[in-house]
């Protein structure tokens, strides 16, 4: 069964705009991570936010976490064509020692 859901499934924006992706999950977590996947490639880690953190920044990335709502969001500011990829949230589930992935958001940035 899926441990996480992402919204929207697909997002298309103009270069320079901001992109927001949302993730909802079902269980308690140690941390939540976001990954990026270019077409036909492996996933690459972007950012990790711990369960006791509410917001984290890394370059043009901003991640929020609301453990009471079991949700997270990833904001990419000032998007570039090179940001075109699929983005996945992943839940590091308490007691499970494994990462469970969401279904992903396909982002297209139009030059």
């Amino acid at each position, binding site marked *: 069964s899926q441990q996480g859901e992402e919204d929207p499934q697909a997002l298309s924006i103009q270069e320079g705009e901001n992109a927001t992706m949302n993730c909802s999950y079902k269980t308690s977590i*140690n941390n939540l991570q976001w990954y990026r996947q270019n077409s036909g490639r492996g*996933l*690459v880690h972007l950012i*990790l936010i711990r369960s006791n953190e509410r917001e984290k920044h890394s370059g043009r990335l901003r991640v929020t976490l609301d453990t009471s709502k079991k949700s997270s969001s990833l904001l990419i500011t000032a998007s570039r064509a090179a940001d075109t990829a699929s983005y*996945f949230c992943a839940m590091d589930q308490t007691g499970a*020692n494994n990462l469970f992935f969401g279904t992903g958001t396909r982002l297209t940035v139009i030059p």
Partner: protein
Amino acid sequence: IAGITQAPTSQILAAGRRMTLRCTQDMRHNAMYWYRQDLGLGLRLIHYSNTAGTTGKGEVPDGYSVSRANTDDFPLTLASAVPSQTSVYFCASRKGVRGQANTGELFFGEGSRLTVL
């Protein structure tokens, strides 16, 4: 260059055949994982290993087996392939701490695309 190597990159296989997907990492990570990725379903965990000598079942383990004889290698075997095992398979690892819960980021290989006819 340090990282994870998967082989083969791509394979077409007849149903009923046995197939082993290879995964090797040179980062001395304790934990290793096998995922399959299918359109609309995201990544699903097949099997994992928290440390050499131990393995565990993930969400979709049926039809697959793994072994972890040493730290570096984590092969995935399909004993008798079926068409529903057509997928892209990703191996991943993370550092972890021996004997403790594994947390932290995953490092992924480039994937093995398997087609079972």
